[in-house]
């Protein structure tokens, strides 16, 4: 079961984020993740079909509340929407 956890042995959580297309948005995202004490595991940014939007997929390894991180990220003005999934649990179930 542990093999589905991140390298740190902590659960991995995937954030799927829709954001306003702003050169600053990635800096803001990464800063909040670091400052709030979460370890970044992976991050990718993709263009969106919607004009002036980008999609970001970001995973963190943590045993802290990801709800708290989600709420902090939602305070970034350019972020429009976030969904979070627990990847480790998903894989275990699968």
């Amino acid at each position, binding site marked *: 079961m542990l093999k589905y956890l991140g390298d740190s042995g902590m659960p991995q959580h995937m954030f799927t984020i829709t954001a306003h297309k702003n050169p600053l948005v990635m*800096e*803001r995202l990464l*800063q909040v993740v670091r400052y709030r004490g979460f370890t970044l595991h992976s991050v990718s940014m993709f263009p969106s079909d919607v004009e002036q939007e980008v999609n970001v997929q970001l995973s963190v390894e943590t045993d802290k509340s990801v*709800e*708290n991180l989600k709420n902090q990220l939602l*305070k970034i*003005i350019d972020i429009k929407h976030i969904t979070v999934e627990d990847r480790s649990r998903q894989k275990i179930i699968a």
Partner: protein
Amino acid sequence: MTGAELVLKVLEQHGVDRMFGYPGGAIMPLYDAIYDSPINHYLCRHEQGAAFSAVGYARASKKVGVCLATSGPGATNLITGLADAMSDSVPVVAITGQVSTKAMGSDAFQEVDIIGLSLAVTKHCVQITCVEELPAAIEEAFAIALSGRMGPVLIDIPKDIQLAATDLDYVRAATPANAGSEKISHAIEQAKELLANAQKPILYVGGGVGMANAVTEVRDFINATNIPSVSTLKGLGAVNPDNEHYLGMLGMHGTKAANIAVQQCDLLIAVGARFDDRVTGKIAEFAKHAKVIHFDIDQAEINKVRVADVAVLGNLAANISALATQVDIKPWQQHCQQMAKDFAWRYDHPGEKIFAPALLKTMSDLMPNSTVVTTDVGQHQMWSAQHIAIHQPENFLSSGGQGAMGFGLPAAIGAQMSRPDDTVIAVSGDGSFMMNVQELGTLKRYNIPVKIVLIDNSRLGMVRQWQQLFFQERYSETDLSDNPDFVMLARAFDIKAQVITSKSQVDDALKEMLAHDGPYLLQVKIDEMDNVWPLVPPETANEAMLESVKS
């Protein structure tokens, strides 16, 4: 019209009549436009002073404070003020000049990536890329600064965009009514049930109450329930200080009654407060028998530090009004009142030396209730919070979250500019005062009638107190006995000043200061070993207060 003129036109239409700043190369076009603008600009003597003045202006008036700086060092000097505004949720719009677009990214003279620097200390920041963006960007900055949990926004404008000619004109659109803002949270029924079943409830009042314009509603709730209440540093003034069930400030330097009551309560109702570590002490021990109802505008504060049994998000005024319910808590009320009586402040103090708490209590009794008190950071700040009766939250301005020394004088300048008819007193310490002492130049330049009460122990007092208590009396770098002659310093700026050293001088000196119609500095010499009591040591439960051990 130029970009710079357009900026001022948009600011004017957002009701800006005063702003604080300092000119320099990359913001010269804007300063050139200010030359003809009806907006009053106040030249501060350091950009940090400008930022703190904007904070003081905003907090005392409940309007947006505006500050300006040039690129590079001008912009970096704003950062501490913005950090203060971020921590204390103050609506400030900072405008910085930037080097011209074509020079950006070339390490040009006075170029700094202020956007990168300001990310962590602003609610939002934006760099303008063409003149057409200006009106919408400024409009958005004001809207963001004022919406939800308020905060600072920075707009960085390259010099060529300030100079660019534009045909754009600007007329501010009517603001749509804030639909749904009176909506009452569905969680309120659960909150009511908790309150109805509580034997020992406490209302824990934070700075959010004043900022949400919910002072009347919170006071109505207190009057309807007679619930005992405590306040944070930033919440002071939200509860009527004369309320018979009010126990004063809680936390590290809170009253004994407030801290014990919170530790004993079975229901803690937090309104616009964020469980700051200076409030809670050791978090695992804080009000550990209590259920928690948390009212806040910021979803991210819910469960951040303390898990809430019920969270009530949104409009505080509407929600707290809906919480009012009959409670039968007489034994608890009596217990709290008895503690307030038993642990009341004592102002009897041996010897002829001035006892700062007694002086501040006398000042509080002499000053009008509408007086704005600003503080710096340290012992005098905690004594001010403990011993001055504050009647509205916008009348007590202190750097809460950041504890930024140097806040008091420039914040008082901003407050006085926003409320010219009210008395404004900056209570400072000899350490903090020297951190923005250059703002005496601003007092002189505009003859701003701020009164400065300088509590002088010739020490960096709070650090010295901690060295005494927790660092084996190793007084590293806290001896300030080589301070300048503060009275002579004030006089160098044409500011009337006097120094007092004994108790018998206190009444007359305070009366003279309050009666003086211009700026005034009252230097109050106190014993270097006086300490702030009570004190909850760091990472300790709030009931384990250290009390008046004479140094």
